[in-house]
């Protein structure tokens, strides 16, 4: 039994140095607790312990990943940095896209909450990333949602997937953010651990960039948005129960749900309110409240500023009674922001908030001291150097070891698997692949997302990349895509991460845009497992090296560890998001063929026998082994340049990149999306199976108006890009006719491709 007073103040902590503190329950290791005592020269108060424990968690401190993530910075050249206005370390990366416009974008994970409570977990995931973007001074303009689930027909997937999709839609639709991309991937490894990643893109004028720092003595700290409640403080409730055992406000709440409920309407109003505040120049610094709530916001603002900060917790508007300082500091109540405001602007700030019916309260100010001081009932409950909380958390060099079994999986080549050989077997394989959960139409999901709102969406699903108009006058726009094939990463994490980047890059290029910057969400198993750490280290290196070769910087990202069920980690899943720019959105390239009469279909790039990690191996043999397709980044660059040139000169009327499922799937999709048949003739002497199902990287299927064919192929040849004529679009045909293989009516393909998800999920 403890004998702490009601308020565990700093003075109290000094006079009771030997009290047992539940630091282990809060996730701190013995040496970490010892370090806190060393930093403070005494034991921490409860409130301080709550702050350190959340801020030093893996999620907030990046303690296992930091040493590896440094490599992104080391491989970013000055030239790559040129257009980057904010990079790793800020709430989100910012890129100058010309004409005075800047774009900010970031990916983040909300995996575990979405497993516990799919709707709210996914909804608050979207809410969180949107606030990150707002904190940069930008207007959020679009979202995308890379999702991964267990097997499509598993009962638990029926619980998780519909909830997640409804949550992403419920929140994003209500905010008025068009959903312009994402992924839906099914794999056994995500059965107990779905991945819900969310991306948000924001736009601002370059001069409106806001960074999170609290400087200027006397500046006020204003907390605005929703009230602070008991949600999402899960772990910290052990403090309350320790302290006030048995008492109604303590032990009675011990089992607080760590799930937060989102209020998208509150967030929508908060967005408009923030934009008006920025516009009126009323904000010196701003920070969103996400994981770790006020602990994070106050310590990060103070740490990034040039002085100290004093906060009075009694001023924080609360939703629940009897909250302790530790609970207030750790609450993850959604839809809140924290601003640093010049005292002369406070009245104007409050006026804007009133107009939007947003609760706003001055909770403290910037001081010329060095510490973050937090008061509660006139007692000092936190007195810490903010950097020690926010930026000087523990750093681990976790053991890294390539597991011996990696050789076994690599040796288990997919080339020996039984292949379809007769035309009947090939026909059946094409249909079976098109209907398989990972290749079938995503419309059941994407139909639940508003892609039209605000009237600037130029391409969204089912295009390779989403394209958004930024400037109505000039037609300037951006493109985004997110990708990752975790099966490739499992076979070779270094190459797999590069392939993820290559695909996202190619997807952006396929729309006619130029890739300019990268974000990521690195989803991995436990960092305490040396084999997982090896995957992580390899993936980071692969991604960083590839970014350097392509000349586009990583501007930010997110790490999610501990994605595993029991001892079994998920497949390493480094989701990569690429941002591109397009100077004139009217030249965006659609995915479906048939826009012009009798287009020629050309396959750009080279096809090799590459089946390791392929969707074909999974669907027909449930096999994962061998090596992934070869990466050729110079080829990816050349492809992007050729597509760009072709789109500028009106030489390309449709394009679709090849990825999972290879050429067969690309043909199926481009025909169905364009509602146009095609006659396909593969080059003389090739193996139709390899040509149809190999997943060689660096390939794009393009449709070229007949009149442009010669000019376009001459350009490809002159620049050293291999190409092959594979057929013609044929609007009259209403079938996909692959010579000597199969002639499949579009209606039959459509039924296969579109039927799967509705059958599974209603």
């Amino acid at each position, binding site marked *: 039994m403890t004998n702490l007073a009601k308020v565990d103040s700093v003075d109290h902590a000094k006079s009771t140095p030997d009290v047992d503190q539940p630091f282990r329950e809060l996730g701190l290791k013995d040496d970490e607790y010892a370090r806190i005592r060393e930093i403070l020269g005494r034991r921490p108060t409860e409130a301080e312990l709550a702050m350190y424990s959340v801020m030093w968690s893996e999620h907030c401190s990046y303690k296992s990943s930091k040493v590896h993530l440094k490599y992104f910075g080391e491989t970013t050249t000055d030239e790559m940095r040129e257009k980057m206005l904010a990079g790793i370390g800020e709430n989100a990366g910012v890129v100058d896209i010309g004409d005075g416009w800047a774009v900010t974008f970031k990916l983040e994970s909300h995996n575990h909450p979405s497993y516990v409570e799919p709707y709210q977990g996914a909804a608050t995931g979207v809410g969180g990333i949107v606030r990150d973007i707002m904190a940069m001074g930008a207007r959020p303009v679009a979202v995308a949602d890379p999702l991964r689930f267990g097997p499509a027909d598993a009962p638990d997937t029926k619980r998780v997937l519909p909830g997640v999709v*409804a949550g992403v*839609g*419920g929140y994003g*639709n*209500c905010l*008025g953010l068009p959903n312009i991309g994402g992924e839906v991937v099914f794999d056994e490894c995500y059965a107990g651990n779905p991945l819900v990643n969310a991306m948000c893109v924001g736009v601002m004028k370059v001069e409106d960039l806001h960074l999170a720092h609290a400087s200027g003595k006397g500046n006020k700290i204003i907390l605005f948005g929703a009230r602070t409640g008991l949600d999402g403080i899960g772990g910290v409730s052990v403090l309350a129960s320790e302290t006030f055992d048995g008492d109604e406000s303590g032990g009675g709440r011990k089992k607080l749900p760590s799930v937060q409920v989102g*209020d*998208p*309407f*509150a967030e*929508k*109003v908060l967005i*408009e309110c923030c934009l008006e505040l920025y516009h009126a120049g009323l904000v010196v610094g701003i920070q969103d409240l996400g994981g770790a709530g006020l602990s994070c916001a106050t310590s990060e603002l103070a740490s990034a500023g040039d002085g100290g900060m004093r906060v009075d917790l009694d001023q924080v508007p609360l939703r629940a009674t009897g909250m302790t300082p530790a609970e207030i500091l750790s609450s993850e109540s959604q839809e809140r922001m924290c601003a640093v405001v010049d005292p002369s602007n406070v009245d104007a700030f409050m006026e804007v908030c009133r107009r*939007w*019916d947003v609760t706003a309260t001055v909770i403290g100010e910037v001081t010329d001291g060095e510490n973050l001081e937090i008061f509660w009932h006139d007692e000092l409950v936190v007195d810490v150097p903010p950097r020690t909380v926010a930026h000087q958390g523990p750093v681990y060099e976790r053991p890294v070891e390539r597991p011996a079994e990696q050789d076994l999986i690599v040796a288990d080549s997919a080339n020996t698997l039984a292949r379809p050989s007769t035309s009947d077997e090939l026909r059946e394989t094409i249909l079976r692949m098109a209907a398989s959960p990972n290749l079938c139409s995503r*419309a059941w999901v*994407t*139909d*639940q*997302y*508003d*892609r*039209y*709102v*605000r*009237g*600037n*969406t*130029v391409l969204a699903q089912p295009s390779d990349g989403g394209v958004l*108009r930024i400037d109505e006058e000039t037609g300037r726009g951006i493109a985004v895509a997110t990708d990752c094939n975790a099966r490739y990463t499992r076979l070779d994490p270094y190459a797999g991460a590069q392939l993820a980047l290559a695909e996202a890059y190619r997807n952006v290029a396929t729309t006619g845009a130029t890739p300019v910057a990268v974000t990521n969400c690195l989803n991995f198993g436990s960092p305490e497992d040396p084999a997982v750490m090896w995957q992580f280290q390899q993936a980071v290196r692969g991604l960083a090296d590839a970014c350097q070769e392509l000349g586009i910087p990583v501007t930010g990202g997110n790490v999610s560890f501990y994605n595993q069920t029991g001892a079994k980690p998920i497949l390493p899943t480094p989701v990569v998001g690429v941002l591109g720019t397009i100077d004139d*959105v*009217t030249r965006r390239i659609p995915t479906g063929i048939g826009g012009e009469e009798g287009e020629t279909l050309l396959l750009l790039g080279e096809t090799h026998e590459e089946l390791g990690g392929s969707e074909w191996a999974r669907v027909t043999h449930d096999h994962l082994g061998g090596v992934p397709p070869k990466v050729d980044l110079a080829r990816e660059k050349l492809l992007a340049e050729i597509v760009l040139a072709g789109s500028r000169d009106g030489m390309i009327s449709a394009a679709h990149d090849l990825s999972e499922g290879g050429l067969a799937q690309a043909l199926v999709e481009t025909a169905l999306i364009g509602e146009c048949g095609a006659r396909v003739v593969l080059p003389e002497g090739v193996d139709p199976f390899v040509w149809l199902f190999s997943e060689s990287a660096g390939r794009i299927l393009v449709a070229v108006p007949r009149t442009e064919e010669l000019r376009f192929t001459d350009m490809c040849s002159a620049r050293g890009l291999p190409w092959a004529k594979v057929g013609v679009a044929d609007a009259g045909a209403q079938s996909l006719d692959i010579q000597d293989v199969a002639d499949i009516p579009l209606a039959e393909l459509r039924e296969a491709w579109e039927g799967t998800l509705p059958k599974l999920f*209603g």
Partner: protein
Amino acid sequence: MSAKIGVVTFPGTLDDVDAARAVRRAGGESVALWHADHDLKGVDAVVVPGGFSYGDYLRCGAIAKFAPVMTEVVEAARKGMPVLGVCNGFQILCESGLLPGVLTRNAGLHYVCRDQWLKVENNSSAWTTRYDAGAELLIPIKHGEGNYVADEAVLDELEGEGRVLFRYAGENPNGSRRDIAGITDARGRVAGMMPHPEHAIDPLTGPTDDGLGMFLSVLDALVAA
């Protein structure tokens, strides 16, 4: 001088920028109306756009109908001012009593965003004269509660008086009674519809420009008046 069309913004309205853009594209002047306004700033017609006014938490449109600006809109509409409610705006006009019936949860229980074929049933309302009767339009829908419900007598009356503006062609996306996608009041001045004409004004950003006709029609009506 071009006609002035007001576009109402409630907290939570989303498609106001699109509606304003559509008005301008059609040649009108768009005027922003704020939910707390007590006057209509001299506009000649009003669009109540889509979105999630007040979060749509209680029931779509239930709270928005009490906004000060709606008092003005209702009064002006009763005097004959053309008013168009799209999606959430349609729900608000029903809740306000300007149009009969109510929009309930989609039969499939999911929010649906897709390009939808519509058949023009009435081309004599203030908002539909630019269309041919029986024409088919391709316009986006995006809603979770677009299932139009009214009792049989009301439905019969709507049909009998030719007040069904649009019907869903092909598959009914939300279970609406008699495939109703849009209706008008008895004078053909107040219109409500679930599909979004303001998202179909340019094939660059929508499936077609089939929606522009709504805005051109009302401008015709205002000039003729």
